[in-house]
């Protein structure tokens, strides 16, 4: 077999391979000042104000999993990408790519779940599209959603805005979604209650912004690549260092146990209902308290701090008392051998 350069699964992992694709293939051809920001959503200045715009595709396998399904994920994920720029989501689009032979009952189930997620979030789907591909040319159902939101005047949330002294808050336990999917794929059933954490976070964000305007510098939902990769991206964008305290990072016991068995590090696992907030230190206590009072942030915790440098470095103080570097995810997380 002749080996040519091809797309590998790693290119979709959200880690370094994805970044290389963006840097080497997409940006050179498509770049403009808005795209080049590389944030969760773009902010476009219009006569009506600041518009947030984002798009995301969902190809999760299995499509139904404990705690959610591909439909709910597609709604919450795109709402969260808007929320991470401080935007109030206005509306969504829904594009479906269906594989010939996909059970209509399953499609109905996904659409019902989309309906539920939209109602819960109070954000409607206002336009849509459907395509069908021959059997074997897709995998049951792929979903694309785009979203539009409005950002209030004066709100400036960006990965670039993290500054030394900022407190790093994680809105809840880490790794729930990623490990649920991996355990399902591996066919490993574990005691306890592994569930995806898929959840829309825009209300949490709006309350935080209302409570302490200007105190929230950076928001990021650590989806693919996990907390480790998101914090590396922030540290690089803001030219700061970040120091984490391992024993302060909330990980559910069942998630920790599954990670031990599957050889995974929860720092690299996807979350679908959590955000990282980097906030001014003088407002950190109040914001943490507020987050904990809301259903989306019950388990929120301060997990670290931003420091002066070296720029781009994320350090972890381990539970054992040592320190080490936390790097970005490189490719798809692979289970270890022994």
């Amino acid at each position, binding site marked *: *077999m002749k080996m040519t350069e091809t797309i590998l699964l790693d290119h979709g992992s959200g880690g370094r391979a994805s970044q290389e694709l963006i840097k080497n293939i997409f940006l050179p051809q498509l770049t403009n000042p808005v795209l080049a920001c590389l944030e969760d959503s773009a902010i476009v200045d219009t006569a009506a104000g600041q518009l947030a715009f984002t798009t995301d595709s969902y190809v999760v396998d299995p499509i139904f999993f404990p705690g959610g399904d591909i439909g709910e994920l597609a709604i919450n994920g795109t709402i969260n990408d808007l929320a991470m720029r401080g935007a109030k989501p206005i509306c969504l689009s829904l594009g479906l790519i269906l594989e010939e032979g996909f059970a209509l009952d399953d499609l109905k189930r996904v659409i019902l779940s989309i309906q539920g997620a939209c109602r819960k979030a109070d954000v409607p789907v206002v336009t849509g599209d459907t395509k069908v591909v021959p059997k074997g040319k897709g995998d049951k159902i792929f979903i694309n959603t785009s979203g539009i939101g409005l950002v209030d005047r004066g709100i400036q949330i960006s990965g670039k805005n993290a500054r030394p002294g900022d407190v790093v808050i994680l809105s809840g336990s880490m790794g729930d979604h990623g490990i649920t999917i991996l355990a399902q794929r591996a066919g*490993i059933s574990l005691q306890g209650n592994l569930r995806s954490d898929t959840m829309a976070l825009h209300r949490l964000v709006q309350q935080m912004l209302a409570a302490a305007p200007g105190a929230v510098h950076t928001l990021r939902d650590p989806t693919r690549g996990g907390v480790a990769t998101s914090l590396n991206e922030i540290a690089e964008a803001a030219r700061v260092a970040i120091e984490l305290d391992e024993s302060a990072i909330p990980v559910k016991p069942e998630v920790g146990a599954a990670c031990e068995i599957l*050889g995974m590090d929860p720092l690299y696992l996807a979350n679908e209902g959590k955000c990282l907030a980097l906030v001014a230190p003088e407002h950190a206590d109040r914001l943490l308290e507020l987050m904990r009072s809301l259903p989306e942030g019950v388990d929120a915790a301060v997990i670290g701090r931003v420091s002066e440098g070296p720029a781009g470095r994320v350090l972890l103080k381990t*539970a*054992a008392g*040592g*320190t*080490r570097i936390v790097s970005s995810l490189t490719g798809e997380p692979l289970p270890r*051998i022994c």
Partner: protein
Amino acid sequence: MKYVSEYRDKKFIDPLVDELRRTIDRPLRIMEVCGTHTMAIFRHGLRSLMPEGLELISGPGCPVCVTSSAHIDGFIDVASRDGVRVAIFGDLYRVPGSHGSLAKAQSMGAQVEVVYSPMDALTLAEKNPQQMVVFLSVGFETTIPLVAATILEAERRQVDNFTVFSTHKIMPPALSALLGDPELRLDGLLCPGHVSTIIGAAAYEPLAANYHLSCVVAGFEPVDVLQALIMLARQGREGRAEVENAYGRAVDWQGNLRAQKLMHDVFEPIDCQWRGLGTIPASGMAIREKFSRFDAEKRFNIRLTETPEPKGCLCGLILKGRKNPADCPLFGGRCTPLNPVGPCMVSSEGTCAAHYRYGRA
């Protein structure tokens, strides 16, 4: 997490670090043989806690890392054949051979399945009778009995579309070969915990005796590692070279006799090529003639072609503890976990991957 978090608790770690510091009275060069140790030491930040004078070097105990590129090429050859689906442990996915990896082969149409147990590969074969499922097996004594049990099960269930491509290796011959190198100047071995559950602590007695080397079997949690290092330091201080077991909750003196029997029933020793170490007599485990219908190399008539190590790559010397990753001109530049040149970078338990992920400061 009950029964794990205790072993990582600063409250227990701090006194052990103090004791280690107090015990060491001379420079000690210790090799952690096993890749899981290398990774655990980095992941828990233990390197930052090590007292001065204690040098930890990584050994050849990452099974993926010591798999020769000839074997990887053989794996890709099998994976690329019509009607074949290969099953692998995840670590093998990105390992480069002389022209590409299984990840690349998959992107070109090969069917590659990541499994968690060889038994999953057998199940895959039963579910896909029209395909030949080949388990590309890389591993030490920890893995070999599982594969042996799977082959016996395949025989019992009369599954004809399941084979194993065995590149299994066993630890003691490799350690002997390594320790014969006078330049290594080792004072002690942190012996692998998982492998020792099978072969027992007694397996290291010849090494301790022949090379006057302190050997301590260690578990993988910070407390285990520190306890073992203290025992090694104590041996150094007292001039002893003995085998001791710091992992009593999993390892005993004789090991798992049933697993050992299983391994030898199905496999037999064979000379084997280790990446970086060359061919070591009787260090591989090949499928016995009696089970040859489960032997992928025979069924597919695979011929392994020797390939040179990639130019500039120091994996060979790193696996022998002679060089550090930072000494390699490719490290972090041309060779990263995403585009690994050598195997020590690709396996999550490889020395270079550990240094790359956790060590650069």
